[in-house]
């Protein structure tokens, strides 16, 4: 019990004392996960929408692929990315393994199916009559697409929250492709693993608190936006 109290006390000191290492790890976490999320949203929303609004042969297979991707264990994603980025791998010449870019790539692969899958599901649930009404209003394809995204904005924010939660908290992929190198590729989750392993529980608890606050703060902000969107609907 004493260990936990010491940990909490130390955590508060590190957080409010502005510890440089902790700050650096936190910012790196936000950078890697934030960038990965941004890319996943830019790619995932249009991709999910395309699958939702178009019918083509093999569509079911693609949907199954997306749904499987939503449940893919990060460690498997890490393994795949590592295989591609390793010196002898297909993308080895770019020397990205054990860099933050490799971590971003892995997290994009984790977040993409979540964003695409939830966008797809939300658009599929949109009333066909509403879709036709938007077209009947004289909307071009792009105008109709934007109007439909506006209609599912609450669900889209839920997709962003789910994807952010998945990438900010995952540890398997970032350690495998980033190497958990202190001062270079270490993020909050990796740091918590390492600090726990070497018995520095106070630092681990501090980092865990920061991680929780980040997750909570981001989700709170998105929830407020989401509920505002719901009320205006």
């Amino acid at each position: 019990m004493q260990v936990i109290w010491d940990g909490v006390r130390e955590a508060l000191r590190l957080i409010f004392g502005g510890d440089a290492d902790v700050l650096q790890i936190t910012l790196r976490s936000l950078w890697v996960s934030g960038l990965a999320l941004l890319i996943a949203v830019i790619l995932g929303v249009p991709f999910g929408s395309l699958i939702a609004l178009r019918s083509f042969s093999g569509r079911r297979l693609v949907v199954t692929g997306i749904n499987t991707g939503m449940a893919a264990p990060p460690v498997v994603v890490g393994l795949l990315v590592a295989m591609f980025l390793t010196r002898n791998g297909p993308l080895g010449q770019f020397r990205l393994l054990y860099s933050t870019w490799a971590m971003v790539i892995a997290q994009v692969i984790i977040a993409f199916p979540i964003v695409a899958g939830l966008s797809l599901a939300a658009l599929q649930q949109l009333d066909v009559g509403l879709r036709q009404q938007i077209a009947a209003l004289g909307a071009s394809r792009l105008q109709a697409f934007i109007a439909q995204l506006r209609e599912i904005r609450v669900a889209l924010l839920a997709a962003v929250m789910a994807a952010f939660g998945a990438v900010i908290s995952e540890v398997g992929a970032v350690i495998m492709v980033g190497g958990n190198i202190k001062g270079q590729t270490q993020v909050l989750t990796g740091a918590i693993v390492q600090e726990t392993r070497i018995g520095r529980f106070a630092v681990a608890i501090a980092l865990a608190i920061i991680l929780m606050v980040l997750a909570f703060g981001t989700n709170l902000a998105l929830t407020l936006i989401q509920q505002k969107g719901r009320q205006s609907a």
Partner: protein
Amino acid sequence: MVARDLRVVRGGHTLVRVHRFEVRSGLVHVLLGPNGAGKSTLLKALNGLEQADGTLEFEGRAVKGNGARLALRRRTAAVAQKPYLLSTSVLNNVATGLRYRGMQRREANAVALEALKLLDIAHLAARKPGRLSGGEAQRASIARALVCDPVVLFLDEPMAFLDPPTRRTLTDDLLRILDLRGIAAVWVTHDRDEALAVGDTVTFIERGEVVQSGAALEVFARPATESLATFLGLDTFLEGTVIAGPGGDLRFVLQNGRELWCGEAPLGHAVACLPPENVVLLTTTPERSMSLRNVLQGTVEDVRPDGRLLRVSVTTEGLKVGALVTKAAFEELDLRVGAPVAAAFKATALHPIPRHERAERSA
């Protein structure tokens, strides 16, 4: 707008097959038919929302390809059964179509506000769809359609979800605006009273095909098929043969040999239908006149309410004839079950439908 040989096929099934359908400016064209007849599918095909084979001409040009279909949708407007408002304010909803057509926000909002005033809902401009009543939402939907100044307005059972008073006032307002602006409308309904109330022309559709098309009163007075007659609420069907009488006037000979005077019809085997509102019930035998030429003596078999009227079934000479009477007339004539009564009707009220023929008359 003219559609020729329009055919909508989905999953190997032909949903609609229409030889010709014309939308004339300034007229309300009603597409009438039972549920699942293909009315809404035809409406969407005309509006460029449903892919269809055949040719569709709008303002003299063939509508072919996505670009032409979009151009068509920007010269027309649609109101569906449900309002389908976007999750934004009423004003934004009404301005959306104008924005899609390239109008700047400020100007679009000003024009949209005028449309809201026209429909008496300017006070709802800032309201979100979730806080509107069904009637208010449908008014907003109609304002959204009219604001774009359409050449043709497509209406898919727009009053179906509204209570009768709201339906009546909104229908009156809409017809007034259509008339004022000379906008043509294609109005889908399965409600025969609504069809008669709003339609200049009525096209009856069954199993995806046009059964009869023509002036509303003509279609209601002279249905081309038994199924249409049944749909229109007629329940007196008499089997017989149309023959030419000695003076050249037409007679309808019933299967029991009884002859009745009838309206214009081809000679030969037919089923004559008799609109119940055209049957007069009398407790005394009337003198035969040129007006009420046909008189059948019988007894009251059944009395049932039919809206604000009463539907009286009379059994006469082995036949059954239906008549609509007011409650006052019912009481005055003492039309209880078993009472003797005479059913009288004009020759033109009896409309023989040739057997095994399906007529299609262009509007």
